[in-house]
């Protein structure tokens, strides 16, 4: 075994968690001069807020869904969907973008959800935290914030539900991120 070496870490990019499949999560790190092989995952427990990208920024004109395992040590989270701009139409309504979130256990078919919607540039936020009240999370107009006061289960699901008629290249320029709250 190599001698123990002191090194310092500087994390400048968002931490991306990897699901190890055994209920734990890891972040890949590279340690210069240490005995830990480069890129070997090091199990961690979240002690501070961190975030993950749910949907990368792109032009969306159809609905999409993503499921994410809730990391250990997390009690709540904040979903943020940002709509940068919109083009398109709908014969009877305005084009609509709805952020929907669900949390469910792998063993249960029931789920709880929260949703926020927009037809123009703004941020849709959904704050999940046990016992939270609406006053604990507010958004500056025209942004919208919804609160779900229930515990997170094993998984969260995030969905962009999009309606409207879009020509080629048109749609919602949007992305979504989730902040984990210990």
């Amino acid at each position, binding site marked *: 075994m190599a001698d123990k070496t002191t090194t310092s870490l500087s994390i400048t990019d968002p931490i991306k968690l990897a699901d190890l499949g055994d209920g734990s999560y890891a972040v890949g790190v590279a340690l210069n001069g240490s005995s830990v092989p480069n890129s070997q995952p090091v199990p961690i427990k979240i002690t501070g807020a961190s975030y993950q990208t749910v949907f990368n920024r792109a032009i969306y004109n159809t609905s999409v869904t993503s499921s994410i395992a809730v990391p250990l040590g997390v009690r709540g989270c904040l979903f943020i969907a940002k709509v940068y701009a*919109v083009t398109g139409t709908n014969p009877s309504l305005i084009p609509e973008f709805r952020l929907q979130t669900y949390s469910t256990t792998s063993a249960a078919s029931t789920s709880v959800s929260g949703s926020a919607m927009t037809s123009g540039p703004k941020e849709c936020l959904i704050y999940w935290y046990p016992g939270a009240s609406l006053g604990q999370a507010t958004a500056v107009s025209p942004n919208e914030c919804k609160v779900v006061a229930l515990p997170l289960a094993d998984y969260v699901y995030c969905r962009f539900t999009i309606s409207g008629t879009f020509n080629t*290249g048109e749609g919602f320029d949007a992305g979504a991120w989730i902040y984990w709250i210990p």
Partner: protein
Amino acid sequence: MDFPVTAEDFAVLAAEGLTVIYAETASRDVSPGEGWSYWGDLKTETDTKAIWRKIVTIEEALAQ
């Protein structure tokens, strides 16, 4: 200049320190200014707006 559509397109742009900003005008006949490209219309029951876009540095976008 091609504007990004996919997540990969946006990532390539971001790696170059660039991003996309938007502006709206009453119609496509009215440009918001130099360097803007018409993207499309946003049509509602009562209104139609022309949406324009422009690729700028991330610093320029944050300063807006």
